[in-house]
Structure formats: C-alpha cells, structure tokens
C-alpha cells in the first residue's frame, strides 16, 4: 500500500501509537521529600546569608562612623593648635614689652626657656614613666 492516503493512515496510526508509547513520566514518590529537604537547606543557607550580610553592613557602618569621628578629632585638634598658637603670639606681643620694662631685658628669653622645658617635660613624661615602670 503506497500513496498519500496510505501515508495519512500510517501517520494517524503512528500518532496514536506514539501517544501510547511515549507516556509522560510521573514524578517519583520520593520527589517531594527530597524537594522539601532541598528547600529547607536553601532556607537555612538563605538565613545565614542574610545574617552575614546584615553583620557585614553593620560592621561597614561602624567603620564609617569611626573614620568620621577620627577625622573630626584630627580637625578639631589642628584647629585648637592653630588657635592656641596665634593666641599665644598675640599674648606675647602684648605682654613682652611690659615684662621687659618691669622684670628686666632677659625676661622673654627666660620665659621661652621655661616654656621649652615645660613642653619637653610634658612630652617626655609619659614615655619616661613607662620606661621606669618596665625596669
């Protein structure tokens, strides 16, 4: 038997046969159990991942705050230093003529040496104290 009619018949018969032979596979019985286990694992790892992200974000925030504070302190220290230096200069400009007139010509030098000694004393006091404490 040949020709288009025979081909059509074969096609129809084949379609029916394929429909019966190629049955859709059913989802295995263990599928749900395994899927639930997979979902639970995914949920746990998602929780851990969320926690990690939150902690990292908090840590970044804290570091940012610390850095901002540090910069603020440095600026404030620098400002204080400049202000005090100029204030000392102004005070010296006013006070030195009066000191020379009333306490003698060498008074400014004596005061300068005194200031140097006081500054060095303050600067070296703490390291010296630590050194002495160690021995």
């Amino acid at each position: 038997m040949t020709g288009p009619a025979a081909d059509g018949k074969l096609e129809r018969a084949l379609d029916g046969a394929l429909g019966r032979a190629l049955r859709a596979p059913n989802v295995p019985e263990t599928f749900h159990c395994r899927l639930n286990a997979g979902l639970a694992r995914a949920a746990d790892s998602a929780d851990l991942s969320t926690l990690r992200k939150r902690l990292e974000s908090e840590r970044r925030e804290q570091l940012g705050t610390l850095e901002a504070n540090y910069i603020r302190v440095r600026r404030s220290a620098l400002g204080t230093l400049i202000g005090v230096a100029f204030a000392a200069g102004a005070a010296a400009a006013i006070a030195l003529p009066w000191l020379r007139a009333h306490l003698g010509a060498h008074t400014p030098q004596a005061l300068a040496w005194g200031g140097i000694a006081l500054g060095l004393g303050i600067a070296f006091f703490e390291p010296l104290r630590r050194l002495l404490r160690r021995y």
Partner: protein
Amino acid sequence: MRAAATGTTGRDQDIVELIRLGRRDGAFEELLRRYEGKVYRLCCALLRDHTQAEDAAQDSLVRVWKALDRYDGRASLSSWIYAITRNRCLTALERRRKLDSGDEPGEAPEAALAAAAAPPWDGRAQQLRALVEGMPEHLRRVLLLYYYEDRSVREVALMLGCSEGTVKTTLFRARATLTEMLKRRGWDDPAYWAEEFS
C-alpha cells in the same frame, strides 16, 4: 493587562499576585501544584536520565523558590520557570559531556526512563521508543515533549523557549524521520501500529 502582554494565564496571575503581596510560601505551593510535573518532564526530555532529571527538577524548583522574590513579571511565569529549568539542564548536560568526553551518548538511560513510564511490557511500544531514541536530539526532544504534554504545541514552545512555528516544523521533520525509519524496517503498515494498541 500585564497578563495579556506576557501571556500569563489566569492561574499564573494568581501566583504573581501572591508574590506581589509577599505571600511567598502560598505562591510557591500553587506554583508547585501547577509546574512540578512539567518541570520534571522537561528535565526528562532534555537529560534522558531518570535520576539526573529528578535532581535537575528539584534543583530548578529550589532555584525558583530562592528567586521568587525577584520575579518582576516581565516574562510570563511559565517562561521564567522553564528558562531556569533549561539552564539547569544545560549545566548538567555540560558536566556530563565533560565526564563522558569522547563517549557516544548511551541508549540505556532513555530506555530505562521509557520502561519506567510505560506499561509493563509492550513489544511494539518498545520498538517505537527505541526508534525515537535513535532520532537526532533536537527532533527527539520536541517529539517527547509533544506527547508528554498531551499534544500541546504551545506548551512545548514555552518549555523549549522557541516559537510555535519552530515546534510545528520540528514535529513535521520528526514524524517524517520516524516514518522513514519505519519504512526502512518494513514496519510501515498502519495496522501494525493500530492493532497492537487498540
């Protein structure tokens, strides 16, 4: 309106609405009811191995669950799920190709799959499945999915991410190839196929 634009069906729209409302578990439950079998069958058709198909289907569904909050509705829900599944299967195929480098794909996995899905024993059905197994991969996939999905060209197109026209053309070629195979073996008598199954 979005449903019409993206081809989302009514029940898919319900799932999308649940996602939008933040009811993720409810949405996923409904999604499983609707797509679990389809995802598994797609994996079977693509991977030709029962165990690997089960693993891939589970992994795909876990990925869908993880990404559910990020689903934005730009693609239809089914296209999105099938795309995730196809990607997972492609990864599995790639891995298998690396492991079996140089080996021809064996017929045993699909034979086992078909045997598990078929009636206990049927000589002609076995012959037919063996013939389908011997077909080129792209024809075999479309033919399997077409019959798995109750002859729905639209569903096969969605599953494989191609147009309905492509599916129809591929089906036509698959049937022609199969008919040619039958003729070569002298199994082209319609009664041969009709009687056994009727």
